[in-house]
């Protein structure tokens, strides 16, 4: 188990710069997610680590060893492909045993190892089945078993669950987490699905449309303390306000045109957070308390009119129109044993939040 270091990576496809001067360290033994929208270059990054693509400049290290120009088959890195890429002419056993057979490992050892790894992915019953007799989820497990049997330093997963239905995907996510805990191999998981990334990752990196890494951190850090508006919008949903920062000795405020002043906590050591600066405020919909009544104990309050209500079962989403015409989103948990007041369309409501529950971002 060794960490991966990417230094000043540049990759150009057909004259288009996909990755430019990218630096990233993926710690050893962690479940690391690379999250980004389609076209952000996250798959390219994965393919560079695997060796399927060559970087135009920059260096890739696995532990202390530079692997920038190492051939694919000599890297101690294995990949789980999005479409599984199983060998259609082999059965499950031969697919999983492939890397060991190439190494000329003894037959009885191969058999033992294949059975062991198939047990880990709950496929021991299907050992001699043909690939096309398996379901999508089972094929995914074969691909997983095939990739981990050789005990790679790093396992790369390229949107491995994209082709599965939601229920199966949730189940496989849990199994992936368990598998990673057993194997202790570094997992690098590429996805555009923030739910998957938040679920599996010990640590994650968010990439933007320009192939730049916006932020690296634990899922909680990323969600609670996004460092840019892009991250705040991409991971989870949020309400973004633009305003002018007013720093006073006791308290600080954000003046939002047409809405008023709101108390905020100014982040320390940020050059952009000065008195009079134009900044953004990110407010998660679930951090807002919505009510028709006047409530005490909140540092901020906004009033508006309910525009639409979306009932999700577990929660209800309100779209509320503010004085300046802007619509904000509010999530409320539906707790039946605490009877809630009934809020209806076009009713006047108040929204409350604590100053610690919003994040100020650079414009």
């Amino acid at each position: 188990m060794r960490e991966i270091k990417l230094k000043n990576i540049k990759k150009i496809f057909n004259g288009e710069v996909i990755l430019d001067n990218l630096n990233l360290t993926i710690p050893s033994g962690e479940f690391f997610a690379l999250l980004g929208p389609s076209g952000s270059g996250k798959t390219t990054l994965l393919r560079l680590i695997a060796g399927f693509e060559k970087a135009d400049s920059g260096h890739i290290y696995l532990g202390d060893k530079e692997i920038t120009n190492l051939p694919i088959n000599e890297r101690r890195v294995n990949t789980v492909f999005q479409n599984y890429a199983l060998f259609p002419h082999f059965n499950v056993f031969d697919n999983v045993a492939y890397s060991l057979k190439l190494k000329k490992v003894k037959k009885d050892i191969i058999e033992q190892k294949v059975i062991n790894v198939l047990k880990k992915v709950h496929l021991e019953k299907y050992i001699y089945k043909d690939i096309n007799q398996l379901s999508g989820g089972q094929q995914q497990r074969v691909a997983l078993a095939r990739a981990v049997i050789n005990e790679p330093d790093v396992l790369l997963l390229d949107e491995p669950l994209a082709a599965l239905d939601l229920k199966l995907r949730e189940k496989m996510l849990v199994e992936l987490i368990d598998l990673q805990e057993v194997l202790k191999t570094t997992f690098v998981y590429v996805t555009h699905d923030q739910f998957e990334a938040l679920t599996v990752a010990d640590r994650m990196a968010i990439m933007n449309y320009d192939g730049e890494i916006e932020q690296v951190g634990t899922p909680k850090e990323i969600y609670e303390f996004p460092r840019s508006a892009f991250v705040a919008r991409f991971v989870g949903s949020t309400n973004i306000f633009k305003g002018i920062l007013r720093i006073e000795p006791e308290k600080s405020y954000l003046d939002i045109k047409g809405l008023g002043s709101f108390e905020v906590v100014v982040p320390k050591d940020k050059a952009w957070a000065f008195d009079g600066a134009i900044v953004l405020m990110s407010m998660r919909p679930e951090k807002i308390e919505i009510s028709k009544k006047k409530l005490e104990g909140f540092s901020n309050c906004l009033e508006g009119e309910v525009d639409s209500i979306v009932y999700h079962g577990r929660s209800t989403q309100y779209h509320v129109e503010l004085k300046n015409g802007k619509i904000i989103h509010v999530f409320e948990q539906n707790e039946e044993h605490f009877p809630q007041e009934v809020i209806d369309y076009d009713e006047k409501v108040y929204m409350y939040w604590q100053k610690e529950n919003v994040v100020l971002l650079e414009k």
Partner: protein
Amino acid sequence: MRNNSFKSSRAQEYDFAVALPAVLWQILFLYVPLCFIIYISFIKAIDFFIFKNITLANYKALFNPIYFSIIIRSIFLAFFNALFCLFLGYPVAYFLALRAKRFKNMLLFLLILPFWTNFLVQAYAWFFILDYHGFLNKVLLKIGIISTPLHILNTPWAIYIVMLFCYLPFMVLPIYSSMTKINKYILEASSDLGATNWQTLGYVTLPLSLSGIRTGFFLVLIPSFGEFVIPALLGGGKIMYVGSMISYFFLETKNVFLGSAFTVLSGACLIAIALLIYLVFRKLSKPSGFTGATGPSIKTNNSAKLSQGNK
């Protein structure tokens, strides 16, 4: 559902109607004449549909080492032509399908360019190349590989060389087509799991392009067996092959009875050889893993299939 099946049965009727002219054409101009030839091969004088004078005399007359050596020579030519086409064509198809990126379409165009010229013209063009004072000898002399020009024209060498080049596209195209169907991620997975390029070729690319190899092999083998023009023109007509023998019977000696018998006999030999090669291909394409997969795996695989079938 009902609507669907209604549609599909209508579509089937329609399909049949569309196929009918082609089927009739085949029956009229292929199967009927074939039946005539088989019938004529068993008679001694023209007595259509009397079925009185059925005899094996024609076949007895063919029971001569000369005729058998001609058939064997043709089988030899057909088999080795197909084999050489495979050895030369496989790398071409591999390059076109998996390596060539920018010039792929142009190279494919160049490959099928010979089809735009008449086959006879192609064959004649080779005269200028293989002639005693021809292009090939000049080049070889210039490089210094030979000191006196080679006699290639009117020898089996000329036949094999020209056959190889004329039939090459028939081998390359099916293999190319089967290779383009291989998912590129499967090849990447193979290298990812530690295979060298040669190992990937042997364990993944080759087995997955076997259907193309088989198609190409038969596309070359079968017409090569009856090839008439190339041996006649470039072999100088001195060496007899099945095609030249048949034309000799029908056109020179006008002995349609012996000619028919020889046609049927050589056809039977071709079918036998083709069947044998087909069986070899089927054995090769058995999904039994690779590098002689472990014994039990094959057995259990079969039993698993059986139990699947019993359900």
